[in-house]
């Protein structure tokens, strides 16, 4: 299995390059600001004192490569720098927002795979019949809908009209786990797109696998239907789906930002949006690195799983 090992090595290398690229990109963007960055950051009322403070905090009087080296070294030690607006360490912001975001993401991912695969298999088993048409058109329709629009509608109906769930997380602080009702709508919105995409892929893959000669061959040789479906056809359907799962990581991260804004959940997304609004660059940089790293790692994991499931398909590396 020499090929496997070299593939993994190449894939890990790509991951490392991507990580480095994310870090560099984040740094370069702030570096590319026109004019004096400190003036730009100081905001609408350029108060000389504030400009000086910003300049001091960002070390703008030193050459770029030194600042980059310092910043990267800091990142390696978990030191993300200091917020421009509050003067608190960025790591503190990250720690505050981490809990709610992790909770949201974890619940979503836990539900995503069984619901997505389940719906896909269900539709494939009833290909062309009512169940399939229902699942197919629903997943197709919801697939492209932005989270904020769907979320706003769900709040109007289920929170305001019916009163089943609270409309926002305001007042629940960070103890979301103690109030599961608060989580229902955010998780539902967060799930919508990835579930649809996953279900559609599993359905297509499953229908293809069920029609493939190897499935006919297993049936021909007396393997019972359920075993053919789940032990022989499903693994083929899952390979393309896992690959897509990696790409839905992207959507989940986008979704988290929107959902946190929509339901006022004090997670990383909210921290990011506030920092963007305040142009608090060190905080934006820190969060971008964390989000970027999460994507790289999750993509890497999904590619490894895909490679295991479909050793033949050349996952780009």
């Amino acid at each position, binding site marked *: 299995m020499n090929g496997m090992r070299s593939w993994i090595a190449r894939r890990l290398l790509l991951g490392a390059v991507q990580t480095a690229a994310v870090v560099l990109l984040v740094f370069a963007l702030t570096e590319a600001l026109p004019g004096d960055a400190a003036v730009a950051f100081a905001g609408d009322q350029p108060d000389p004192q504030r400009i000086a403070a910003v300049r001091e905090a960002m070390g703008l009087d030193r050459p770029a490569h030194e600042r980059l080296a310092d910043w990267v070294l800091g990142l390696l030690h978990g030191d993300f720098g200091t917020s421009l607006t509050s003067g608190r360490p960025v790591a503190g912001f990250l720690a505050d927002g981490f809990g709610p975001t992790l909770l949201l993401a974890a619940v979503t991912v836990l539900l995503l795979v069984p619901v997505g695969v389940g719906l896909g298999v269900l539709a494939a088993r009833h290909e062309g019949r009512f169940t399939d048409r229902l699942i197919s058109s629903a997943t197709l329709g919801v697939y492209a809908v932005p989270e904020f629009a769907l979320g706003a509608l769900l709040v109007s109906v289920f929170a305001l009209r019916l009163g089943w769930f609270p409309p926002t997380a305001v007042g629940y602080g960070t103890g979301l786990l103690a109030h599961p009702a608060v989580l229902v709508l955010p998780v539902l919105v967060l799930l919508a797109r990835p579930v649809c995409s996953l279900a559609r892929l599993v359905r297509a893959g499953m229908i293809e696998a069920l029609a493939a000669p190897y499935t006919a061959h297993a049936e021909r*040789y007396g393997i019972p239907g359920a075993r053919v479906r789940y*032990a022989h056809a499903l693994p083929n359907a899952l390979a393309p789906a896992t690959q897509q799962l990696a790409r839905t990581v992207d959507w989940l991260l986008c979704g988290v930002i929107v959902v946190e804004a929509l339901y006022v959940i004090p997670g990383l997304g909210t921290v990011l949006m506030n920092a963007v609004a305040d142009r608090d660059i060190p905080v934006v940089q820190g969060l971008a690195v964390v989000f970027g790293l999460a994507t790289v790692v999750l993509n890497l994991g999904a590619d490894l799983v895909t490679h295991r499931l479909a050793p033949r398909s050349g996952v780009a590396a």
Partner: protein
Amino acid sequence: MKPPMEQPMNENPVLASVTALTVEVDGRALVDRVSLRIRPGTVTALVGASGSGKTTTGLALLGEYPAGARVTGEVTVHGTRIGYVPQHPAAVLNPARRTGALLHDMARRQVRDLPRPQRRTAARQRVTEALADAQLDASAGVLGRYPHQLSGGQQQRVVLAQALLLGARVIVADEPTTGQDALTKRRIVDQLAAVAARGIAVLLLSHDLDVVRELADEVLVMRGGRVVEQGPAHRILDGPTHPWTKELLAEPRTLPYADPGRTGEELLTVDGLTARHRTAGRRAPVLNVDRLTLRRGECLAVVGRSGSGKTTLARCLAGLHRDHTGQILLDGTALPRSLRDRSREQLAAVQYVFQDARAAFDEHRPVLDQVARTAVRLRGAGHREATEEARRTLTDLGLDDALVRRAPGGLSGGELQRAALARALLARPRVLVCDEITSGLDPVTRRSLLDLLATLIRRPGGPGVVLITHDLDTAAPATRLAVLDGGHIVEQGTREQILTAPRHPFTAALLAASRRWGAAVRP
């Protein structure tokens, strides 16, 4: 397998029978009133070109029909299961599961009656036995590999092992030797003979008459879904009565392609060539040719098994494979490695005809226009003039005007291969490199294409031809033969030398595996 003594067939019980089977799809009969009986230990061959209804009949035995088919007639199977070895064994092997998965699933169902603790061992035992029967060693790790990690031969044996594990007493083998070289064919024939010797009946679907001749006890010749002739193998093969059978059975060409008296000076010379392929990031040498020469007016055949490097050699000549060292000389002048660097004259001088003619044409444009472009680009002809010349050449090769105005989709494989020849000829090439140009064609079409090639070579000013092939029958009429194995030319010489007095063991093995040429080297 042919029984050692003449046994009266009727004493053998019938394992399966097909009676007046008709399979229609959209009102078109794929199979029309076919009847046959299958007895233990015998090989029944369904012979015919592709599309003659062989596969549909074979699958009917398994109770499988095309979607939307209307079926009449009767298929009865007496107390046995039927195994199936398809043309491409990889298609029935699940790409996402290890080879052992289906075998173990099948074995586990057979040992359900045993007490639970013994089941695992018993199932494993059965799988090992089935593999051994199919000449595979379970301890070699075949079970733990994915299908794509097995060789083609191993894949075929795994599929056979599945059928044997099933306990099938009838096995349907669909085109098992198509596109295989002589040595691989030999192995497959031996394997099927061994299966039949175990008392298992084989239904062989094939258009490979050599294989049919060796294995079959009973032959049915099919054409357009109908059986045109049916009977014991020796009677059909030695004394065919139906004209179609006669045409199918006609011997391949033995008359030399080139005029032996007209061989001229050296035209194309390969000197110290080493070609490499990039696999998994490494560049490994796949072909080493010290010296190979094509003379004016002759046909040089390069024979080898798949993977021997013969296509790479052809592509190096044509400038399609750039990654090589050494020289290719045309009239003593070195040709640039890549065709991107070759001048118009050099491009025109060495033309290449592809194995898959359909893939080598643009599916959107009429064939005539595509053929004419050669004269426009390589000889600077005007559009009208080029079209006129293309039309003449195509007509000359037997393709009429209405046909070549169609897009490639409207032509058959044989017709497209002729058009591909015409496209190359319009360059007025000195050297024509033909890469397996007959491999996908049925015997009748193949023969007519090779006859055409001979006509071209024999014309005054006709091109010298490098004929790349895995098929000894196709190579035999060439002026000279070069035998390629493992990237090396193991032997080259005139056809008489190679075919009657081979010096290299590989050449001898290749000849021995062929029915027609084997006599020369068999003790």
